[in-house]
């Protein structure tokens, strides 16, 4: 497959930067799916159908990676040769560990009923804001090729994202669905 030889940014003809134009990404993705999707090859030969399924799958994979801030960060780090699967406590630093513990404690300490919903909402806002600011610093570290720092921020983003999911789950459980 030729498309696989291009990186995801080249695939969608957008500049390889962390802060990207999501609307442009979506527009180019949809434009390319219009050309390559299996629905366009219903009357074509088996070979062309196969080609289309493969192309279309690659486009879906690439779009799924780039549109998500965390997956995009992981992808860009890996392209710089960083191994994001491997993480030691040393990489993370004591300040992050403290922050993690505090945030997690404030989540765990909330009552397990509807009375916690307001507090959950505030916590969610706080965590989202932290996540946004980490995304900005990640972008500038990556731009300055400070890869070790960028990787550290990436792991922080991972943690915040996970916490956000847990907050959402906590909300759902307390709302009873």
């Amino acid at each position, binding site marked *: 497959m030729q498309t696989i030889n291009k990186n995801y940014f080249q695939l969608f003809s957008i500049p390889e930067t962390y802060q990207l134009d999501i609307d442009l990404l979506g527009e180019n993705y949809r434009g390319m799916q219009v050309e390559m999707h299996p629905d366009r090859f219903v009357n074509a030969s088996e070979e062309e159908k196969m080609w289309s*399924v493969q192309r279309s799958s690659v486009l*879906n994979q690439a779009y799924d990676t780039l549109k998500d801030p965390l997956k995009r960060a992981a992808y860009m780090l890996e392209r710089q040769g960083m191994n994001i699967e491997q993480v030691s406590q040393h990489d993370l630093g004591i300040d992050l560990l403290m922050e993690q513990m505090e945030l997690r404690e404030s989540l765990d300490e909330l009552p397990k009923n509807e009375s916690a919903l307001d507090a959950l909402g505030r916590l969610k806002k706080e965590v989202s804001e932290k996540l946004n600011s980490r995304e900005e610093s990640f972008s500038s570290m990556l731009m300055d090729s400070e890869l070790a720092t960028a990787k550290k921020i990436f792991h922080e983003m991972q943690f915040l994202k996970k916490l956000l999911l847990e907050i959402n789950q906590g909300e759902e459980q307390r*709302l*009873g669905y």
Partner: protein
Amino acid sequence: MALLQISEPGSKPAKPLHRLAVGIDLGTTNSLVAASSAGAVEILADDEGSHLLPSVVHYPAGLEPVVGQGALDQLTIDPANTIISAKRMLGKNLLDIQAEGDANKAVTSLYQFDQNSRDGVPQILTAAGLKSPVQISADILGTLASRAESVLGGKLEGVVITVPAYFNDAQRQQTKEAAKLVGLNVLRLLNEPTAAAVAYGLDTKDQGRIIIFDLGGGTFDVSLLSLQRGVFEVLSTGGDTNLGGDDFDRVIMDWICSEAGLDQITDSKSFARLRNAAIAAKHSLTEVDIVGINFENWQGALSRAQFIELSADLVKRIINTCRRVIRDASISVDEIDNIVLVGGATRMLVIREAVAEFFGKPALAEIDPDKVVAIGAGIQADVLIGNKSANDFLLLDVSPLSLGIETMGELVEKIIPRNTTIPVTRAQEFTTFKEGQTAMSLHVVQGERELVSDCRSLARFELRGIPPMVAGAAKIRVKFQVDADGLLSVSAEELSTGMIAEIQVKPSFGLNADAIEEILQSSQENALADMEARSIGEARLEAQQLIDALASAVEIDGDLLDESESLLIKAAIEKLERANTEGDSSEIRVLTEDLNRVSGNFAARRMDLHIGAALRGESIDMIESSSD
């Protein structure tokens, strides 16, 4: 070609160069067929002008099957040979059907199934022989196809058939098989909610985010789609396979009984009258504020406000499902631009009001909610067959349930999470667990839970011929591929030898439709229990790997150990082994850590011996695989 065309009286002439393709809504209760003519898509009527074809087939002895209203008329006369709701049986085996709850019992208890059928394929004994759900569906499709061919005046070149978003692999496969049986070329299986969006999308040229709210007699589906410049993207889906308009009838029936001081009605005729009274009241309440009800000797009145109160629990379930679908797409309610209503039950004011309140705007309902799916399918058929130009519009659909593989410790590794856009190919690398392992058994599962036993098994296959290596050294790439119809195939490849095994997920392994909502429900309810289960599973796995690695390390390099060290390690291993069968996750973790510590020096000496200082800081099982 200068020949003049003369059309049959009463039928529309086929347009030159217009390839005939139709959309079919193959419903549980009624089916419809739609086709485009002169730019607009319309429902095709039969000779008597009716649009809906009851999804009922009557199989008399020695005669051709009767499909539709004629068959429905036989339901009370010859119930054993008159098959209704065949759609509910598609893709299931006999055991699934017999094990099912109330929803299907009413239907399946009417029939006699052949108990000796091969592979548990359900076969109903009729006067005209054994009939499978595929055959029955094929007869319905055949009737719709000949209706279309006689109205359109030509042979159909292709059909688009709609299926519920929650249909699994097996149900989709069998829908396609039914079409093939009557010689139809299936251009695409289209999810019903998506079809509804198509019907509205093209008519109104909307841009933005759309909720498709589909409340039928017995099922509920919600889909969130985004539409931009003619491309529909399904962002998320959800639903409840045991919630529908019938449940609203039931709350009115219960209310009448309690008001009239009646216990459970067991007499079937009396029950039918009660049900009719409830349905009539439900319908009236869409027009008037209060309705009088007569049942047996009792008289009473039900107000709209009372009805709202009675159905509050049902409405809450419905709205919660909407909320979850919106959450899955990571957006908020106010970002929804349009709500499309599908299914007869959306005519109820209590639904319309609840929907309008939750979304902060009224829903679209200009197209008849019973016909909107077929119209969308008709539009899609016209596009796929090539009558519309390529850049008209495109659908990007998602897979509704997560697909994954069983890993050590009976955990599920999700390879394709639910709501992933299809077609999709995802690969993940796995490794061997035991030293010298030459085969790997792969278990493909579907569901949202973390443990294999809580998910649905789809298929099992084996990859053989892995060259013997230390644990963790082999690399096996497992690839999942879901095509544009939502059908799955899986392959596994050992990367050093290129040895490949693959499987197409077979229909008979498919997921029982009613089990799907249960899976989604329980994945939410059990998130916490799952986390502990996963945590202990992982702890056990890690402990076992460390023990195995150390055992084989001692065997090779035991001479690097002095006696006291050797005893310490042995004791730590014993403790950990005991905890691994009896202890909780934190105990296992602590003891794993202990074993790591007492064996640390040994690991360091082995490391120096084998590969020098390059791997400092690695845990011992990593060294085990790298030193090979």
